[in-house]
C-alpha cells in the first residue's frame, strides 16, 4: 500500500472542500467504514494521496421516520444498526433483512450505508491490480474467462455486477440518495439511476461527482398494506456474496396485489426491476402457479455468459420463493 495523508473531516462542507481538491493524479477519497476502501488500497487497485475520514462528521448517522417524509438514513448509519433499527425492521423489512444478510457481523459493525452503495464491484478481475495494469478489453477478458458470478442480463457492454446487496432492497422501495456538493448544494437521485454499470476504467460506479458527499438515503413512507421480503442466495450461508438477491415489495388490498416491485441484484450490472413479472402480479391474488409464472417472466430474456447459465434457474427459484414470502409476510 502506498503512503497517504489522513484528514479528519469536521463537517460536510469541510469534507466536500477537501474532496474538491483532488485530481486524477492526486486523488482524494472519502473514507466511511473503510471496509471497501482499505481492501482496494491493499490490493493496489486504489492509491489515494489523501484520505478524508468522514466518520468524524456529526449528524450523519441518524435514522428518522416520519409518516409523510418516510425514512431518512444518514450516510454513516452502519449496516448493523440498519438491521436492528425498529422503524426499519417494522416498515422496511426487506431492507433490514438485506442489511442483516450482508457481509459478516464484524464488517456490518463498520460498514456504512453510504459506503455500501459506493463500494466497487467484487468481480475478481476488477479486484486484482494485475488486470488494471494489463490493459486490453476488460469486458472481453471476462466474457471469455471466468464469468460464473457475472451478469446474466444487460451484459453486452459490461459484465460486472454492482456489489451492494442492500441496494437491491433500496431499488425495490424506490429509495433515493441525497448528494451534497460545494456550497451545501444538494441533489436527490433515485438509487436506480444513481448506480451505474460498473466500469474498470472509471473511479466510481455511481453518478456521484468527485466533490460530492453522499449525505442521506431516503425512502418514501410505505403505503398501507405494504408487504415485503428479501432473499440473498449465496453458495454459502456463513457469509458469501450472492449468486443473486431479490427484494419484493407488494402493496396489497386484502389478498389482492395492487402494486408490485421486484428488484434483482447481482444478475445485471445494476439491480434490475423485473417489470414484466411485476405487471403479472397487479390486480391478482397470489398462488403457487402465479408465482411460477412471475418467476419465469422475471428471468425471461436472460443472456447468460459461458459459465453462468446456472444463475438463471437459481434466480427463477429465488424470485418465486421471495414473491411468495412477501405475500405471506
Amino acid at each position: 500500500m502506498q503512503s497517504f495523508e489522513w484528514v479528519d473531516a469536521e463537517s460536510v462542507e469541510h469534507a466536500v472542500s477537501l474532496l474538491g481538491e483532488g485530481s486524477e493524479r492526486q486523488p482524494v477519497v472519502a473514507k466511511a467504514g473503510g471496509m471497501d476502501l482499505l481492501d482496494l488500497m491493499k490490493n493496489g487497485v486504489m492509491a489515494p494521496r489523501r484520505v478524508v475520514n468522514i466518520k468524524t462528521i456529526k449528524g450523519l448517522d441518524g435514522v428518522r421516520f416520519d409518516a409523510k417524509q418516510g425514512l431518512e438514513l444518514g450516510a454513516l448509519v452502519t449496516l448493523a444498526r440498519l438491521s436492528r433499527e425498529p422503524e426499519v425492521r417494522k416498515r422496511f423489512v426487506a431492507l433490514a433483512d438485506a442489511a442483516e444478510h450482508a457481509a459478516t457481523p464484524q464488517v456490518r459493525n463498520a460498514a456504512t450505508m453510504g459506503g455500501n452503495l459506493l463500494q466497487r464491484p467484487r468481480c475478481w478481475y476488477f479486484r486484482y491490480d494485475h488486470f488494471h495494469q494489463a490493459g486490453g478489453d476488460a469486458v472481453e477478458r471476462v466474457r471469455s474467462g471466468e464469468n460464473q458470478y457475472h451478469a446474466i442480463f444487460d451484459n453486452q457492454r459490461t459484465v460486472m455486477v454492482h456489489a451492494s446487496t442492500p441496494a437491491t432492497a433500496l431499488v425495490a422501495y424506490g429509495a433515493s440518495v441525497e448528494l451534497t456538493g460545494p456550497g451545501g448544494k444538494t441533489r436527490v437521485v433515485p438509487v436506480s439511476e444513481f448506480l451505474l454499470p460498473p466500469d474498470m476504467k472509471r473511479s466510481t460506479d455511481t453518478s456521484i461527482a468527485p466533490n460530492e458527499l453522499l449525505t442521506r438515503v431516503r425512502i418514501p413512507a410505505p403505503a398501507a398494506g405494504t408487504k415485503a421480503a428479501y432473499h440473498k442466495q449465496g453458495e454459502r450461508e456463513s457469509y458469501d456474496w450472492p449468486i443473486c438477491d431479490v427484494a419484493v415489495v407488494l402493496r396489497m388490498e386484502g389478498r389482492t396485489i395492487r402494486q408490485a416491485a421486484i428488484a434483482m441484484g447481482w444478475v445485471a450490472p445494476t439491480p434490475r426491476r423485473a417489470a414484466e413479472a411485476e405487471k403479472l402480479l397487479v390486480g391478482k391474488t397470489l398462488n403457487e402457479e402465479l408465482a411460477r409464472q412471475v418467476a419465469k417472466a422475471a428471468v425471461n430474456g436472460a443472456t447468460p455468459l459461458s459459465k453462468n447459465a446456472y444463475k438463471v434457474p437459481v434466480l427463477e427459484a429465488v424470485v418465486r420463493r421471495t414473491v411468495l414470502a412477501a405475500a405471506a409476510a
Partner: protein
Amino acid sequence: MQDVKDTSDPRASNKPGGEQQQQQAGGPPQPPQPNPGPSRQQALPYGIVGAGLKEVTRRVPEDEPPPLPENAKLKSIGKPVSRLDGIEKVTGKARYTFDVQLPGMLWAKWVASPHPHARIKSIDTSAAERYPGVRAIHIPERILSTAQLRDPKAEQGNRYPTVRYAGQPVAAVAADTPRAAEAAVKLIKVEYEPLPHVSQLEEAMKENAPRVFPGPTEQPATAGGGGAPPGLPQKGNVRGPDNKPRGMGPRGDVNKGLSESEVVIEAEYRTQVQTHVPMEPHGLVADWKDDGLTLYASTQFVTSVREDAAELFDLPKSKVRVISDFTGGGFGAKYGIGNYGLLAIHLSRKAGAPVRMILDRREEHVSGGNRPNSIQRLKLGAKRDGSLVALQVQAYGTGGVAGGAGVGFCHSTLYECPNVLVEQYDVFTNAGPCAAFRAPGQVQGIFALEQTIDELAERLKMDPLALRGKLDVSGTDDCLARAQERKVGAERAGWNKRRPAGSDKGPIKRGLGFAQSQWLYLVQPSTACEVRVSGDGSVEAFSSTQDIGTGTRTILAQVVAEEFGLRAEDIGSHIGDSRYPMGPASGGSRVTSSLTPAARNAAYRCARELAARLAPVFKANAENIVFADGKVMVKGKAGSAMPFREAVKKAGFEEISQRAERRDDYEGYLFKTPDMALSRHGIGGVQFAEVAVDTETGIVKVERVVAVHDCGRPINPKLTESQIYGGVIQGVSYALYEERHLDAASGQQLNANVDQYKILGSRETPRIEVILLEQLGAQSSTDARGVAEPANVATAAAVANAFYNATGKRIRTLPMTPANVLAALRG
C-alpha cells in the same frame, strides 16, 4: 493393505507412501527382519476393545517395556487431556513463525512474475538498490518445488530460471520495513520474453499445446509424499502412465476380466484443484551468522528444513539450527525450505541480518501448493453376486509445474479384485506447483471409487454396506476395523431407515450415504526421544518433531507421564528444535505412531533407572518401586507413598537421562527406509453423511456426518476427535466449495484470497459425530497409529453417495456448486 507382493518390484520406484525417494541399490527390497538383536516372546492384547480382544504372541526386543493394557486401565494415556498449549494459543502468546521478530530483522518480499511462461532476458535492480531502507537483493539461480528437467541442457544457456507460472519468484528484496520492501520490489525492472502458455488440464493434454517444459522431467517427492516415479515417458505435457500408484498394482489382465464380467459400470469423474490455505502461510525467518544459521520455520518437518538448508548452502548440519515452536497448519505442503526460505537465507547472508520472508495470502495460494485436479475414467467389472472381476482406471491431473497428480492406491488395496490396472498421468500446466495434501491422491481416488462401488450395489440391488462387507476382506487391521465401523456407524447413522434414492417429493431432497476410507499406516524409523529427570523431580521429554496443530506436545507428555505416574501437565514437553533427538515428520499421519513408542521406551527406561536410584531411599528392590498418582511407593505398601518430587529430591542426583529410538513394529514392515516404514496394515475409517439438496437452487447442505475411525490406540481421544472434526470439515469444504480458479488467458489465479476462494464456514459445518475405535494391533510399545489423513479421505465420497440417495442422480464433478449440481440433476 492386501497385495503385499506387488510392492516388491524394483521398478516400483515410488515407494508405497510416496515418500522420499532413495533409490536402493541392488535387487528388490526384501521385507526386512524386524528388530534384530536379543528378543523375547511376548503375549500382547490384540483386537478391537469392546469387540473381542484376544491375545497374540509376538517376538519383541528383549528390553521392550511390558505391553500396555487397554486405555481404560491406564491413567494418562487414552485420557482426553486438553492441549497443554491451548491457553497459549488462544491468548496469542504462542509464538508462530509469523510472530517471530528478531532485533534488526529485515522484511523480505519477492517480485512475482506476471507472466505464466517466459524467459527472463534481464533484471535491473539498480533503482531498488538505491531505495531507502533496502539492505539486500537476491536473484534466485534456481527454483524449488517444481519438476526438474531430466536433461538440464535444454535450458543451459539461460541466465535465469525460466518462468513457468504466474507468481513465480524472480527476485527478492530485504529491507528495514515491509513498506520499503514492497516499494523496492516494484522498482526492479524485469525484461521478459513471454512464451506461449497453457493453464487448463484438457488444453495441456493436446498434442499441439504449448510445452511447459522443453523435455521430460522428474519430480522427487517431499517427506510429505507427492512426487512422481522417476523415468516415466513424457509426451508433450503428459507424463506417464504410472501404473503402480505408490508402488501398488497392476495385477491380472483387466481386458480379460472385463470381458468375463457380468456387470460393467463405467463413468468419468472430475475433481478440482484445492489449495491448502493453512491459517499461517508458508514462511521462514533466517538468521545467518558466522558461527551458524538459525532458521525459524513454519514447517511440518524441522529435519527437512535443516537438510535442505545444509545441502543448498553447503553447511554441515551442525551449523544449522531449526526452530519451530508452533506451525499454523500445513496439510502436507510445508516441507523443506521452499523458495521463500531459499531467498530468506540468501538475503540474510548478504545483509548480515535476520530476514523474515512470509508469504502473503496470494503468494500462499499461488505458490504454496495445491491438491491436483483429476479426470478419472473408471471401468468396473463384476459378477452378479457382487464379486469384482476387473477395475480399470485412467486418470489425468495437473499439479501445475510439479508432478504428483495421482488418484491414490485404493484401487489396488481396498477391495478384492483379481484384475486391476490404474494408469495415471501427470499433466504439466503453467500453474503453481502441487504439493502433498492430506491423503494425496486418495481423496480424489476414493471419491470416484466409492461412488462406483455404490453404483454397483444399486445395479445388483445389494445394500452398499453389505457389498463392502463382501469385498473388503483383506484381513488386515484396517479391514477388520472397517467391518466394525460399518456396524457401529450404520447403527448410529440410522442406516436401516435409509430410503430408496430420490424419495422426497418436494424441491428439497434428503439422503444418507456412506463411504470407506483407507490410508497407510506409516512409521518413521529414524525417530528418537530423550527423557530426563532432574534432581528436583522435573521430568522432561525432548523431540525435534513439531506441532502443526495436532497436539504433539500433549501426547508426548501423556505417554511420558504414564510411566512416572504423573499428569501430562507435570511433564516438560519440548519439541520443535533440531537440536533435540530427531522426531518424525508431521505428514503421512505418522507423528503419534512414530513418536509415542520411542517416548514410552525412553520414559520407561528412565523410570526404571529412577526406581533404581530410589530403591535405597525406600529400602526396597528397584522392581518393587512403583510410580502412581503423583507418588512413589513400594508395591503393596500404600503407607510408603511419598510425593514424586519429594522422593526424587531424596535420591540426591543431578540428572538422569535416557534416549530411545522407534523400534520396528513387532510384525515388521512391508518396506523400510530410515525415513519411512510401511506396515502391511493400513488405517481404516468409514463415514456416513446426511445431505439436503435444494434441487431448484443447487445448494447442497451437509447436515450430519457420522465419522467412525480407528487409529490404533488413541493416545488422546479428545485430540483424535479434533483431528477427525478437522478432516470432516476439510472434506465437506472440498466436496462443496473449494476450487482454485485460474484465468486461462493470463494464467492468473483469480481467487487468491479467502473471500473468493470459498471455504466452508461455521454455518456450513455439519453436526459431526465421532465414534472412535480402540484397536490394539500388538505392534509397538504404544500401539498408536495416525488419523489426520484417514479423516479426510471418505468425506467427499460419502457426501456424493448421499447426494445420490437424496436425488437419484450421480454427482461426478467436484465441487458441488450450484452450477455443477444443477448440471448433474439435469443429467
